[in-house]
């Protein structure tokens, strides 16, 4: 039976797996290995070379996405096998694929295919310029918009994590310049996310349309566990909505802060970050009502009963 007070949330891709829960979650390593070899067989044989120790593919954006996805799927599958059954799932940025797998809308293999197709379509669609994304903490949306307007940059705010925490996407030189200006304006922290694709920005519309053309060939079902949209916070309940969300997620701005508010509004009181990250859990400290937000290594006994 689904626990409507519990949500599984899936982080964006990362290449930092230092805190993998092999020690704290018995069975995780086995789940991970099985899915890793399944992914190697289905999508990319090189994936089989990965271990948490060798940090293979550290600088490979696509394979990093695969590894994060595999990790996230292993974690949520294990948690479900241990009796946890969330009432909702949500995927932050490229965490959408693991959220859809966990929600039962796509198979593990289809999730891998979606990642490959999306990455390929987006890269193909981008003109020669170099892109990146960045984070800013300490300024509000209006401050950031003013900085962008003043400099006539084509940068877009592509996610809001909390009231004073934002993500931007755009051309690399402009993003670097804006991060510098933001520090001068009083941002407490800024960071270049060092990615090559300006996710969730309108620059990706053509790539998203190309990706959309391929979705008809894939088996996308209705989520068994509602998956919440980061674009408009709607609950995705049928294949048509899922397919539309997969496309929008690439080139529409997201709002994690609003998504968390919506989940709280649905009665969720406990969150588990199912992936190789503490980022969403750290961010939850700045969202009223989201104190019970756990990483995989810190799930209290009461939540795993």
């Amino acid at each position, binding site marked *: 039976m689904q626990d409507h007070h519990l949500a599984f949330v899936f982080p964006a891709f990362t290449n930092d797996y230092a805190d993998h829960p092999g020690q704290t979650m018995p069975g995780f390593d086995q789940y991970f290995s099985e899915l890793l070899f399944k992914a190697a067989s289905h999508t990319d044989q090189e994936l089989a070379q990965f271990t948490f120790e060798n940090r293979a593919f550290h600088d490979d954006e696509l394979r990093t996405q695969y590894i994060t996805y595999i990790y996230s799927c292993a974690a949520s599958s294990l948690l479900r096998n241990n009796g946890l059954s969330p009432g909702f799932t949500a995927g932050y940025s490229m965490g959408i694929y693991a959220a859809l797998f966990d929600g039962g809308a796509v198979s593990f293999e289809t999730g891998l295919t979606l990642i490959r197709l999306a990455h390929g379509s987006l890269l193909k669609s981008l003109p020669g310029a170099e892109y990146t994304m960045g984070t800013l*903490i*300490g*300024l509000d949306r209006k*401050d950031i918009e003013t900085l962008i307007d003043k400099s006539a940059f084509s940068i877009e705010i592509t996610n809001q994590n909390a009231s*004073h925490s934002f993500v931007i996407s755009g051309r690399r030189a402009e993003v670097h310049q804006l991060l510098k200006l933001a*520090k*001068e*304006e*009083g*941002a*407490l*922290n800024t960071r270049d996310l060092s990615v090559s694709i300006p996710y969730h920005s309108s620059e990706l519309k053509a790539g998203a349309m190309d990706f959309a053309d391929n979705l008809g060939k894939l088996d996308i079902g209705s989520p068994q566990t509602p998956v919440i949209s980061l674009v408009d916070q709607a609950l995705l309940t049928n294949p048509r909505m899922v397919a539309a969300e997969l496309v929008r997620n690439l080139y529409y701005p997201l709002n994690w802060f609003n998504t968390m508010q919506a989940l709280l509004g649905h009665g969720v009181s406990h969150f588990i970050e199912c992936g190789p990250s503490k980022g969403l859990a*750290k*961010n939850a*400290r*700045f969202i009223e009502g989201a104190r019970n937000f756990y990483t995989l290594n810190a799930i209290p006994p009461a939540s795993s009963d």
Partner: protein
Amino acid sequence: MAPITDKIRNEVKEIVYSFFADECEVDLASINSNTSIINDLDGDSLMFLELIEIFKKKYQLDIELKVIGKYAVKHPVATIGQLIDMQLLIIEHENRLLEIDQ
């Protein structure tokens, strides 16, 4: 503007020490004013922001984060002692923090 009393000074110190001991999972007794937030505790800017929010609520402060950010650019914080000093200045001066340098 709130005058800094010994009571406030002690409260701030106690909160900062407890916060980092808890967040960074280190023994409270191992923290002192010279402890490096980044090198010794692996702290980050989100912790700094969280502490600001704690003190904003506790002392009902009227201060914009960007005022603190601008001050921090000129007066970077590296140790627990420096962090406590900055928090006390924030409590004392609130949105007039930048006027200290004028």
